[in-house]
């Protein structure tokens, strides 16, 4: 059955459940990548390694939030992703200042 005016047959095997599963599966893989990255956070050895790793975790979180928004059909989760994208650099800046000029944070 072709929808009127489009001339393109809908692809029958792509259902809404499949799309949700694909998005959630991708999000799960990203979480596994986050766990792998967390090894670097724990192992260190230097503070810079840890800060960089947590920054990568933050970027991953933004991606996972966007995937969750698509999978669960909740556009409001995109706002949280935006907040994270905006605030992600804050910790890196604060800790960089803290280590360069000992004691300075703000």
């Amino acid at each position: 059955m072709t929808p009127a005016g489009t001339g393109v047959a809908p692809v029958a095997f792509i259902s809404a459940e499949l799309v949700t599963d694909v998005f959630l599966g991708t999000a799960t893989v990203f979480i596994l990548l986050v766990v792998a990255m967390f090894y670097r956070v724990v192992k260190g050895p230097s503070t810079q390694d840890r800060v960089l790793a947590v920054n990568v975790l933050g970027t991953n979180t933004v991606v996972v939030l966007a995937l969750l928004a698509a999978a669960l059909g909740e556009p409001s989760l995109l706002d949280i992703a935006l907040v994270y994208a905006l605030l992600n650099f804050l910790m890196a800046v604060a800790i960089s200042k803290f280590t360069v000029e000992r004691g300075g944070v703000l």
Partner: protein
Amino acid sequence: MVSAFGIALFGFVLATALATALLRDILAVIIVFAAYSLGMALFYAFLLAPDVAMTEAAIGAGVTTLLLLLTIATTVREEPGIAIERPNLPALVVFGGLLVVMIGTVTQFPALGSRNAPVWSNPEVTQYYLEHSYKDTKVHNAVTAVLAGYRGFDTFGEAVVVFAAGISTLVVLGREVFTRE
């Protein structure tokens, strides 16, 4: 697929929580705690509580790290001899007891969406908010409507308390940090 995502996320949050508790270096703990906050925000988003997730994002990614860093900037951070803390046995016993109590409590909760849940045993109240909240407040999310609409003055009072705490923190820090040349 939903449960696979939940299990993976749970593993991540558990790993971050354990690392936060066991690492010795305070600076490393602050960084690991930021990762824990990321995981918790994902959990709140996954459980469809976007307002809580937003708060966790703003507080966990920004404010907590800054406050903890300011704390160790004005105190002393000693170099730890060992990387991983050895667990304290009495504390472990207390923790185990607390864990048993918590698990016992959580397993007694009514299942998600159960008709026997206490929220349904008083259907007039629940249905009232579900039916009237959008008409009264023009907010789609019923929880947000109750939080910021029906009990708006209460939330406003909480905001005032948090604001006062922030101002007093700035006053204390202004004496300690901002006056440094």
